[in-house]
C-alpha cells in the first residue's frame, strides 16, 4: 500500500504540489440484524479508497486541494492528482495553513486487532444472535426484541511529503439489543449497546439482558414533580449529551470559529473540581484507539479539563498551525451529506478519540450503589433524547431523560415518564460532584466513544 501512496505523492509533487498527502481506508463489515425476536438480515459490505490532499504554494500562502478515488490504478491515480490540484487552483491562499502533519514517532496502540473477528463465519454470528434472543425472550410481557451484531475489519495507511508513513489494521465489534415490553396498555422500551475492538460473547448477553430488564422495569411510569433534584446520568446518556455539547465545544476549530461557550476560558475553572476530562487515543481495547490519527499524527493522552480547570483543546494539524501549537492527534475524517461519506472521501477535521470522564479527586469516586443510596431526591437516566438540538455556540441544551427512574431516600422507586433536563453545559459541568464505578465505552460516533461511569449532577432543575 505504501508504494501506491508514495507514487501518488511523487506524482503530485512533480505536477506542482509543494506538499502532498495520501490516505487509504478500507472497511470490511459484516452486520446481522435482529427484528421481532428473530434474525432477519445479514449484510456484508466492502469499501476502500484513497483520499489525497495537495498544498500548492502561491504568493500569499498555500492553497489546499482534495480529491478521492475508489478504483485505484495508475491511470485513476493520475486523474486524482489532477483533480486535487485543480481544486487547489480555485482556492484563495490560506495564510493560516502552515503544513501537513510533520513526522513524529508513534506509539503502539495495544490490543486493537482481534484475529477471531477477521475469521468469523456468518453462521457463528447467526447462532449467537439466536441464543441471545432465546435468553431474553423468556418473559411473556416482552413483545419485541431487535438490534444486531456487527463485526468490522479496517485497514488504514497514510503517507505525506514530510516523511509521515504508516499503516495499521484494527477490528471492531458491536452488540446492540432493543427490547419492548407491554403490560396492561403500558409500554416499556429500552436499548443497550456494547462496543470494543474484541469479540466478546458474554458482553453481548449482558447487553441484551440489560435491555430486557430495563424495558420491563420501565412499565407503568409516573411523572415527576418539577423541581430541583440530583440527576444521575449513566454513560450512554452522557455520551449522547456530550456528543452535541462538550465534545464539539472543546474542538480547537470551533474555538477559533468562536462557536463554543469555552472561547476565552483557557486556564479558567469551567467545571467542578471533581471533574477531569481527557482524550486518550491509546487505551487498550478501546474502540477509538489507534497509533496515529487521520493525518498521521501520533495519538496521545490530552488533558482537556483537569480538576475543573480548562487546560487543552483538541487539534488537528491545521488548527494547530493556526494557534502555533502541536497537533493533539485528533484529525478525523468524517463528512455527512446526502450520504455519509467513507473516510477516504472526506478532508480531515477534528474529532475525539476515546473521550474519558473521571473523578478529579479520589473523594469524588464511589460505588454505584453508594451513589444511589446517597440521593434523597433525584432521577437516574440511562439515556437522553434530543441532545442533537443543543446550541453549540452558547452551550444551551434541553433533553428528555429517557429510560429513567426516580430515586427517593436512596432507593430507586419508580420509572419516570417524560422528565426534561434543560440548562447550560457550563452550569452542568460545575454541578458534577460524584463518579460511580460502572465504567462503559459508550458509542458517540462511527468510531468514537465516551468512556465514563455514571456521574452525579447535583441539584439541577428537572421538569415533569
Amino acid at each position, binding site marked *: 500500500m505504501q508504494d501506491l501512496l508514495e507514487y501518488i505523492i511523487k506524482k503530485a509533487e512533480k505536477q506542482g504540489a509543494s506538499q502532498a498527502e495520501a490516505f487509504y481506508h478500507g472497511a470490511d463489515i459484516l452486520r446481522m440484524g435482529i*427484528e421481532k425476536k428473530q434474525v432477519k438480515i445479514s449484510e456484508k459490505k466492502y469499501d476502500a479508497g484513497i483520499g489525497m490532499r495537495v498544498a500548492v504554494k502561491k504568493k500569499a500562502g498555500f492553497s489546499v486541494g482534495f480529491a478521492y478515488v475508489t478504483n485505484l490504478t495508475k491511470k485513476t491515480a493520475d486523474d486524482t492528482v489532477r483533480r486535487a490540484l485543480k481544486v487547489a487552483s480555485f482556492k484563495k491562499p490560506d495564510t493560516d495553513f502552515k503544513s501537513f502533519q510533520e513526522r513524529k514517532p508513534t506509539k503502539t496502540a495495544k490490543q486493537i486487532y482481534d484475529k477471531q473477528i477477521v475469521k468469523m463465519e456468518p453462521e457463528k454470528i447467526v447462532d449467537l444472535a439466536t441464543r441471545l434472543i432465546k435468553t431474553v425472550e423468556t418473559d411473556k410481557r416482552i413483545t419485541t426484541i431487535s438490534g444486531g451484531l456487527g463485526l468490522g475489519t479496517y485497514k488504514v495507511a497514510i503517507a505525506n511529503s514530510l516523511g509521515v508513513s504508516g499503516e495499521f489494521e484494527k477490528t471492531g465489534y458491536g452488540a446492540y439489543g432493543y427490547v419492548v415490553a407491554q403490560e396492561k396498555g403500558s409500554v416499556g422500551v429500552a436499548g443497550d449497546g456494547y462496543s470494543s475492538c474484541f469479540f466478546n460473547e458474554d458482553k453481548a448477553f449482558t447487553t441484551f439482558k440489560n435491555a430486557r430488564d430495563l424495558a420491563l422495569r420501565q412499565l407503568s411510569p409516573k411523572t415527576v414533580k418539577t423541581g430541583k433534584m440530583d440527576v444521575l446520568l449513566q454513560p450512554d446518556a452522557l455520551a449522547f449529551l456530550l456528543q452535541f455539547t462538550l465534545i464539539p465545544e472543546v474542538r480547537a476549530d470551533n474555538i477559533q470559529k468562536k462557536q463554543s461557550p469555552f472561547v476565552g476560558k483557557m486556564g479558567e475553572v469551567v467545571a467542578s473540581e471533581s471533574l477531569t476530562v481527557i482524550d486518550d487515543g491509546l487505551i487498550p481495547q478501546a474502540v477509538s484507539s489507534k497509533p496515529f490519527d487521520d493525518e498521521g499524527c501520533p495519538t496521545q493522552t490530552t488533558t482537556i479539563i483537569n480538576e475543573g480547570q480548562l487546560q487543552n483543546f483538541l487539534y488537528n494539524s491545521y488548527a494547530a498551525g493556526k494557534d502555533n501549537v502541536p497537533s493533539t492527534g485528533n484529525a478525523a475524517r468524517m463528512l455527512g451529506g446526502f450520504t455519509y461519506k467513507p473516510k477516504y472521501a472526506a478532508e480531515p477535521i477534528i474529532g475525539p478519540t476515546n473521550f474519558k470522564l473521571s473523578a478529579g479527586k479520589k473523594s469524588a469516586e464511589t460505588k454505584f450503589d453508594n451513589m444511589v443510596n446517597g440521593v434523597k431526591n433525584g432521577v437516574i437516566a440511562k439515556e437522553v433524547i*434530543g441532545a442533537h438540538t443543543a446550541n453549540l455556540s452558547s452551550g444551551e441544551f434541553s433533553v428528555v431523560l429517557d429510560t429513567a427512574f426516580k430515586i427517593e431516600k436512596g432507593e430507586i422507586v419508580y420509572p419516570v415518564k417524560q422528565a426534561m433536563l*434543560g440548562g447550560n453545559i457550563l452550569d452542568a459541568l460545575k454541578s458534577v460532584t460524584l463518579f460511580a464505578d460502572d465504567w462503559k465505552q459508550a458509542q458517540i460516533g462511527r468510531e468514537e466513544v465516551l468512556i465514563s461511569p455514571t456521574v452525579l449532577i447535583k441539584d439541577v432543575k428537572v421538569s415533569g
Partner: protein
Amino acid sequence: MLVDLAERAVRLAMDLGVEYADVRAEQVHSTSIRLTNDRFEQAVSGVDQGLGARVLCKGAWGFSSTSSLDIKDIQTAVKTAFKIAKATSKGVKEKARVRSVKPVKDHVKVKTHLLLNKVGIDEKMKKVLGFSKTARNFSPKIVSASLAYEDAAGQKAVASSDGAKILTELGRVYVSVNAVAKQAEKITSARERMGKIGGFELFNEVNGDEIMKKAAGRAVNLLKAKPAPSGRFTVIADPRLAGVFAHEAVGHGCEADLVIAGESILAGKIGKVVGSKLVSIFDDSTLAGGWGTQKYDDEGVATKKRLLIERGILRGYITNKEASARLRMEPNGGARAESFSFPPIVRMSNTYIARGNHSFEELLEDIDYGVYLKASRGGQVDTAKGTFQFNAEEARLIEKGELTTPLLDVSLSGLTLETMHNIDAVGKDFELNIGFCGKGQTVPAGDASPHIRIKNALVGGRA
C-alpha cells in the same frame, strides 16, 4: 449499461435458487462543500459507483454491496448475499415473503436545464462563498456563518426478480446556512436551507441571498430573546415545527416495518381514532416540488400518495414488498435505500398535515397565555413508546391573544397520541420544507404543514 448490470445481477441471484432478488446499481457524481467564515473545510467531488444486491433465501435476507461495477465483483457480491442469507435462514422462525408487483420498465428523466455534473466545482465554490459573504455582512453582530453545499447527479438502476427494470436519472442540490450572532456574552444561531430535485438552476429560481439574510436576521433577533417558561401551555407550532411533528411523531409510527416489528404505537390501530378530527396526514411520494419525491421506490415499485390519517382516524401505513405480504396490504412504494451500499427499508417521502380553515389570527385570539414555537433545530422520537421531543429555533410568548416577548431555547415534548388529540385548530396556510431523515440510513425527506394549535403541551425552557 447500469440497468443491464442490475438485471444481470438479479438473474445471477435467481440462478442460485433464491426466492426473490433486487439490485441497485449507481453511478453518481457528487460534490460536498463546507465553508465556515470564508474558509473551505471541505471541497470534495468524486464519482461514487457500485452495486448492492439483496436476496431472499429460505425466508431470510442477505445483502452485499461492492463499489466496483466489474462483472467479477458483482458476481462475488451476489454470491456473498446468497451465502449470508442462507446462514441467516438457520435463525429465522417466521419466514419473510414478498408481495410481487406488476413488472415495470421505465426510464425516468430528471427535469433540469443545468446539469450538476456539467458545472465545475469552482463555480459551486464561488456560489457558496458569495452566500457566506451575504450572511456575514448582514450585521456586525454576525460572528460566524457556516455553509454546507451538497449535490448529486447521475443514474440509478433498479431491477428485481418480479420484473422491475428501471433507470432513474438523479439530480439533487442543497445548501444550508447556520448563522451565529453574538452580543456581550449572549450567543444565538439560526439556520436556513434551500434545495430541489433538479440541477444548478435552483440558484436562478430562489433568491439565495435573501435566504442568507433571513438566517442572519433571525440569529440577530434572537439576541433579544429571553429564556422561556417551562410547563404545560397552549402552543401554536409554525409550519416548520408542525411538519417535523408530522414526520417524526406520526410518520415514523406509520412505517410498516416498525409496525410489524412491534416498535410503533400505531400498530394494530388501523380504523381507530388516533387524533383530533381536525387532523389528516399524508405521505406523498408524488408531490410536485417535494424534496422526497420519486416515481419508483428502491424495490422498483411505483410510488403513491398515501393517506395515513383521515380526520383523526388511522387509515394506512407506508409499506414495502415484505410488509405488504405480512400485513396483506397493497404495496405503496415506500422502500428507500441511502445508496447502493444499503438494503432498502421502509421510509417516508413527503409527509404533511393537510390544511385546515383557521387564519393565524384566529389561532392566536383564544389564547390567554401560551407559546408560539417556530422552526426546528431537530427532534427525536421513540415510536414504540410514542414520545417525542423537538427544539424550536425561536419562539414568542402569547399573552391575551397577542405575540409578545421573544423566547429562545424552547423545546416541545409529549406523547404522540395525546398530542394528536390535543390539536384543537389547524391553519389554512401551508409550507413545504426540506430535511433529512435518519433511520440507520439517511435519505432526503420533505415535510409540510399549516400552523397548528396544541392544547396542554409540555414546553421546556430555562426560565
